[in-house]
């Protein structure tokens, strides 16, 4: 039982597909123009993720290793088609606003990634909860991005007007660049909390301690990520050997 809870927490927080793994960026950027779209896309993906994880876990001893990716795609595509028809039939407004991104769930790297890295190696029960956790994590990511974009870009949240009528919407936030701005700010805020927490817990945080930040730093191995001296040294040694 403990493991199932851990799967849920892992998907929603510690390995959140949007904010930590940065998977499925294409639908993340494209459909989060409003909070409701974010929820719709997230839940659609969740349903498909749970079903495909279960099916692939069931078939994990049947699928030959060499053709596993095409086999996964067939499984995922079948579920996507089913869900697509259901959406078209019962929630046509959501179907219209998500548009091309519903069939594109087939190639969503979260689903393929979970199939490859989890469902193909674990039991049906665990795979199902892994799907729920990851799917809800994705939904949380999309919804929170959607909330900020809709609030600033349209003055509403879930179509309820929050900002006063005189507020002039920052249209750029519901256009493509806005998705990048909001995602970047949300990730930055979360990293701040994570690092703070880890520091408090006394973990050796691998954060660069340069006072002036990345300005003028010549460490090309880092690329803006936090680094430790050991990791740099290891990289250098590896480069020497190569």
């Amino acid at each position, binding site marked *: 039982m403990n493991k199932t809870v851990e799967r849920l927490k892992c998907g929603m927080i510690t390995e959140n597909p949007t904010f930590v793994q940065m998977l499925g960026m294409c639908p993340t950027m494209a459909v989060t123009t409003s909070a409701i779209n974010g929820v719709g896309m997230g839940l659609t993906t969740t349903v498909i993720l749970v079903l495909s994880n279960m099916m692939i876990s069931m078939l994990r001893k049947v699928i030959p290793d060499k053709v596993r990716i095409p086999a996964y795609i067939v499984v995922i595509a079948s579920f996507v088609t089913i869900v697509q028809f259901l959406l078209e039939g019962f929630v046509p407004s959501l179907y219209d606003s998500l548009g091309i991104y519903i069939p594109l769930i087939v190639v969503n790297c979260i689903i393929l990634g979970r199939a490859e890295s989890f469902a193909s190696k674990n039991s049906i029960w665990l795979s199902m909860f892994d799907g729920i956790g990851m799917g809800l994590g994705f939904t949380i990511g999309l919804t929170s991005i959607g909330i900020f974009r809709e609030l600033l870009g349209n003055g509403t949240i879930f179509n309820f007007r929050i900002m006063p009528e005189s507020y*002039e*919407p*920052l*249209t*750029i*936030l519901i*256009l493509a*660049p806005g998705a990048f*701005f909001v995602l970047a700010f949300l990730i930055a805020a979360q990293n701040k909390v994570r690092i703070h927490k880890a520091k408090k817990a006394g973990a050796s945080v691998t954060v660069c301690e340069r006072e*002036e*930040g*990345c*300005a*003028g730093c010549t460490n090309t191995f880092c690329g803006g990520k936090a680094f430790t001296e050991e990791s740099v040294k290891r990289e250098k040694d590896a480069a020497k050997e190569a």
Partner: protein
Amino acid sequence: MDYTMKISSSPHIRDWASTTKLMGQVIVALMPATIFGIYNFGIKALVVVLISIISCVIFEAGFQKLIHKKVTVGDLSAVVTGLLLALNLPPDVPFWIPILGSFFAIIIVKQLFGGLGQNFMNPALGARCFLLISFTGRMTTFTYDAVTTATPLAQLKAGEGADVLSMFLGTTAGTIGETSAVALLIGGIFLIVRKVINYRIPVYYLGSFSIFLMIYSFAVGRSLDLTFLLAHLFGGGLMLGAFFMATDYVTSPITPKGKIIFGVLLGFLTFLFRTFGGSAEGVSYAIILSNLLVPLIERVTVPKSFGKGAEKHE
């Protein structure tokens, strides 16, 4: 005689230049255009300029204080950003537009990427495009003498003629700083003479833009029309962009060859946007797009340290 050698550590060649002094020169060079803009559009233009500069300085100082960095507003770069941003705004914008623009320019484009020297695109232009996309109506409504009119460039695009003389002098509708070609030319030539900027980027920019425009005119069967060409050169933000925005040290190539490539690329993109684009203006998008290509341009134009390298033997 005393032959004692003086020993000192590098650098051995010193120059008068410092960031503060260079930025001061740019501000001086922008003064003709600024003063003309205020004369042309009245006191409201002055208000926009002041709000923009003050908010840029406050945002820079405030952010640096907040993250415990050294406060470097003394280098005047925030003042230049604020001034350039104001010159890129229509005079009738409400007071919060320059403040929002300054926030975007200083915090998002400049400080979040590491401050002066680390920004990958011109902060003032980034903010202008941010505002232009967000508030298209406000940013493209120009009034002149209390009458809402189209800019000369928009009239030109609509197929109307243009009064080149008034465009050269600047008595037309437009953003605060872009209307007067002569004031911008004075400032630009001042910068080139004082060696603050190199002549290559503006000259190749304006030159290649003219050539592309003429080739296009011939291709569509228009006779050589000097008025058309001059109106395009003096109209819109081309002069402001070529002398003050494209030559920004941080976001333009440092190699001489790179500067030429950069200038020609700017000319081509501006021609493309102005001729085939939906809006009449294309300078700001051309410049920020080219800013993104600067690292690539610099990579292919790295000069050889010594000589030309040995011939290749197969």
